[in-house]
């Protein structure tokens, strides 16, 4: 079976590039041919895989049994892939179930309101057109987390893959007639650099709570800051390490209240060094509300390293088993959420044995459920079945 695999690749700063880098070597073993089409040139793949520019796909797409398009919300990485997926339909992998950010960027972001109107009306008919006009009056009314804007892509595609059960349930309920399958996100294996806290510039003896990522209000960084500030008197050695640009644009009082407990690491370009920072942490916090149905590479990496993780009880995170991480309900009250997070962190830090057991269960869970080889086998089974349905 011949596959065209269309995705961003490392070194682009996107979890989807990492996903593909983890999965492709295993896919190459289970399919007769896998040609990779990337938005940027990449040398980060295993030998034996041909990487072509996405612009070469149109003249070759008929030579493949199926084209597999990886779609996320970042228009810089996914504009051309989205356009190809509509023009030359194949199997689409929805890394985010909600694509409203992508579609808004592709239309309104280019001054094309009519394009946005068409997409929202496609999804919701006349009511959608009204929503689009309301959004045009005040963009704060844009239903980013209410309307997924993925209907056109799902309708045109020969199959849809999602890597969260949450997204699978949503997709099945909205598109009962479509070919949709759930396949867990692949993980690694990845090895962190063998670096001590001292070598990483982190304080020895500190209780280190770490968060990481790019700026996004859905990551609730303000809530984490409030929780850390609240725990300061009870755990004087508590420090909060922030990897990436999460603090960018964050101006709420929580940051000032941290009183020297905040360690700004900044963006870490090397994955193995990034993993070393996670490995040196005591707890990883990765809150998310609202969720666009995405799986979290950060959560998988932290759990694979045997680190205790605190997540929001929403979207993909809600489907994680309750005994492998701490899941916090979203209350729509920042103060209440910060209090709950502070209680959860205090509980984890005060009971290291129970915390270690939970983290070990997390490690096993990732090794079993997200094993790249197993994920590649599931791709093979699903794509072969869909190929059979298509070609008989």
């Amino acid at each position: 079976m011949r596959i065209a695999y269309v995705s961003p690749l490392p070194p682009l700063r996107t979890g989807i590039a990492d996903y593909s880098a983890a999965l492709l070597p295993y896919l190459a073993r289970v399919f007769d041919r896998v040609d990779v089409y990337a938005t940027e040139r990449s040398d980060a793949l295993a030998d034996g895989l041909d990487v072509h520019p996405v612009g070469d796909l149109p003249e070759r797409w008929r030579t493949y049994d199926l084209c597999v398009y990886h779609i996320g919300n970042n228009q810089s990485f996914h504009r051309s892939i989205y356009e190809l997926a509509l023009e030359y339909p194949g199997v689409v992998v929805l890394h985010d179930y909600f694509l409203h950010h992508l579609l808004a960027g592709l239309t309104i972001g280019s001054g094309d309101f009519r394009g946005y109107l068409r997409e929202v009306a496609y999804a919701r008919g006349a009511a959608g057109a009204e929503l689009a006009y309301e959004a045009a009056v005040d963009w704060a009314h844009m239903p980013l987390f209410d309307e997924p804007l993925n209907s056109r892509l799902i309708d045109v595609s020969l199959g849809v893959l999602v890597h969260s059960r949450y997204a699978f349930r949503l997709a099945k309920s909205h598109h009962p007639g479509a070919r949709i399958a759930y396949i867990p996100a692949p993980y690694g294996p990845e090895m962190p650099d063998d670096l001590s806290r001292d070598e990483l510039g982190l304080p020895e003896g500190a209780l280190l709570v770490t968060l990481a990522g790019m700026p996004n209000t859905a990551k609730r960084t303000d809530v984490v800051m409030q929780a850390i500030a609240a725990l300061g008197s009870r755990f004087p050695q508590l420090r909060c390490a922030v990897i990436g640009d999460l603090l960018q644009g964050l101006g709420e009082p929580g940051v000032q209240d941290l009183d020297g407990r905040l360690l700004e690491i900044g963006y870490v370009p090397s994955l193995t060094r990034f993993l070393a920072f996670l490995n040196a942490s005591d707890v990883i916090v990765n809150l998310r509300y609202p969720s666009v149905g995405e799986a979290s590479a950060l959560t998988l990496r932290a759990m694979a390293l045997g680190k205790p993780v605190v997540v929001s009880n929403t979207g993909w995170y809600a489907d994680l088993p309750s005994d492998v991480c701490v899941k916090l309900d979203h209350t729509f009250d920042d103060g209440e959420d910060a209090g709950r997070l502070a209680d959860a962190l205090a509980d984890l830090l005060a009971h290291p044995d129970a915390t270690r057991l939970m983290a070990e269960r997390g490690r096993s869970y990732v090794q079993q459920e997200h094993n790249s080889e197993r994920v590649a086998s599931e791709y093979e089974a699903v794509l072969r079945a869909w190929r059979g349905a298509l070609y008989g």
Partner: protein
Amino acid sequence: MNEHDPWMIGEVPFSSQARYIGPLIVRFRQIWNGMSTRWYVLPMIQQLNVLLGRIRGRFADVADWIARVDRDQTSLRRELAETRLQIARLEERLRELESRADVGREDGD
């Protein structure tokens, strides 16, 4: 404009910023409006709202219709892609069969 439904128009209540005599001005204008224009303008507003409601209904019908056509077109695009891929596989199969037939002929010769 009606704040609950932006498609409808309605009476705008009189107001006045004038100190002390503001309420008097408002009351006078209400009485004058009641005598001179209210019974003339209100039925026109009602007619206009009926018209706006119809325009809105037509607009919704057209938006729904365009969305349906768009969805049908998308389904056809998927079916076309399936058909093109199936034809490509049949062409490959045909080439295989032809080359096998050629080999068979050569063996026969």
